[in-house]
């Protein structure tokens, strides 16, 4: 399976995705504009509340090609963050108000500067999260010792495991991914992850065109199944809604489920979730240093508002802390049901 970009799929560009989100797939279906929907909550224009989390996309290269990937990542993606850009990120991390650095990709571990950067960010006393796809630990010998490296720097590991069944996990993430993911989780458990101070959290996202269930109930099921069948322990399960962008958007359109899914998102709109959406305290950095309100805006190529807030080289904390968040139709994904963020439910 190739990335949308490698296939020259129109949905590999942010503008084409936005066009589709506005025009829909038929003349008869026009969901209400998100900005009109949130206006009664008093959160429009939506303002940032600060910059507490710096989420860095270290590159779009990945050893997997997941069907729902909002990054359109894969082995054929060459975009990777350079050391020079990472140094700019480190400089920004010296701001004390930024407490957490959240490393994502692609597979961030495939960036050759990954270990250097984690070591430097750790020395700054930051809480480090790595969004590890698990199979990377087994993809090459050079990655086998990553659990020990993570432990050394007390990195919080957040890993996708869309289901406790091989069938549903492999259907979304590729043949054989479940078995490798289980082995990787056992490797992480073996060095102490999943209990005590070493945080190992899992991410559930639906492997189909539907919304996630209540997080707490699903977490109980995951814990029991993974413990009973594989002896695996983990901390929390984050239930995340699939955003109607990139590869997941392509799947929705190709399977004729786009309108049904958007209807589900719109019908499940929860004004309580608006207050707690992650973009209000997170700043997303693209592989090339460009700044965005969130990872999803990054993939839609919607830079932060404000003339100075476009690139990490021009980082201005005060300007960013007071910026207006840019919203569009995909934002229904973060306000449906109990809400959704990189840390799961928000209400």
């Amino acid at each position, binding site marked *: 399976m190739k990335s949308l970009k490698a296939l020259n799929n129109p949905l590999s560009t942010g503008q084409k995705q936005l066009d589709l989100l506005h025009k829909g797939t038929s003349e008869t279906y026009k969901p209400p504009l998100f900005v009109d929907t949130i206006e009664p909550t008093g959160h429009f224009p939506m303002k940032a509340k600060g910059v507490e989390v710096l989420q860095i996309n270290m590159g779009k290269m990945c050893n997997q090609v997941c069907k729902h990937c909002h990054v359109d990542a894969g082995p054929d993606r060459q975009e990777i963050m350079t050391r020079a850009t990472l140094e700019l990120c480190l400089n920004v991390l010296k701001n004390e108000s930024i407490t957490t650095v959240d490393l994502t990709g692609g597979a961030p571990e495939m960036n050759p500067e990954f270990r250097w950067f984690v070591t430097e960010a750790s020395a700054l006393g930051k809480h480090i999260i790595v969004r590890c796809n698990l199979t990377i630990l087994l993809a090459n010998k050079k990655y086998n010792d990553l659990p020990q490296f993570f432990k050394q720097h007390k990195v919080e590991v957040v890993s996708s495991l869309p289901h406790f069944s091989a069938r*549903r996990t492999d259907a979304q993430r590729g043949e054989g991914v479940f078995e490798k993911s289980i082995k990787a989780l056992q490797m992480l458990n073996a060095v102490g992850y999943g209990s005590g101070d070493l945080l190992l959290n899992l991410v559930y996202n639906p492997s189909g065109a*539907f919304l996630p269930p209540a997080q707490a109930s699903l977490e109980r099921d995951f814990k029991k199944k993974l413990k009973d069948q594989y002896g695996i322990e983990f901390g929390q399960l984050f239930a995340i809604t699939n955003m109607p962008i990139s590869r997941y958007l392509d799947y929705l359109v190709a399977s004729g489920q786009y309108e049904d899914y958007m209807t589900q998102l719109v019908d499940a709109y929860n004004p309580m979730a608006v207050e707690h959406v992650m973009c209000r305290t997170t700043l997303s950095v693209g592989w090339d240093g460009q700044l965005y309100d969130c990872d999803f805006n990054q993939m839609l190529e919607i830079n932060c508002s404000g003339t100075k807030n476009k690139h990490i080289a021009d980082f201005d904390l005060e300007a960013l802390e007071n910026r207006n968040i840019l919203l569009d139709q995909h934002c229904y994904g973060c306000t449906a049901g109990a809400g959704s963020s990189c840390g799961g439910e928000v209400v």
Partner: protein
Amino acid sequence: MSKSYYEPSDLGKFGDIKDFQPELAEKFFGYYNSVFQEGALSEREKSLIALAVAHAVQCPYCIDAYTSTSLEKGSDEEEMMEAIHVAAAIKGGAALVHGVQMMNKAKDMSM
């Protein structure tokens, strides 16, 4: 009048039954919604029971609804098929256990 007894779009009109009798519909849907909330059984477990019953009563609307709900609540295909086998076993068992009644009657009638 529809050409078919079952129209998939009718599932979404279930709530319309209140148009002909609002009071009873309101009571039913209130009860229905309460039944499926998290309790001693999880929503996921309840949806699997509903899926099994849907097959036992052979209701296409219910099979559609509770296949979706079971997946949404986090069940997988193996669990869902096992639930249907439970329904099949009870349905089959219910037929077969009446074989005892047949045997009793046959014995009564025979020398």
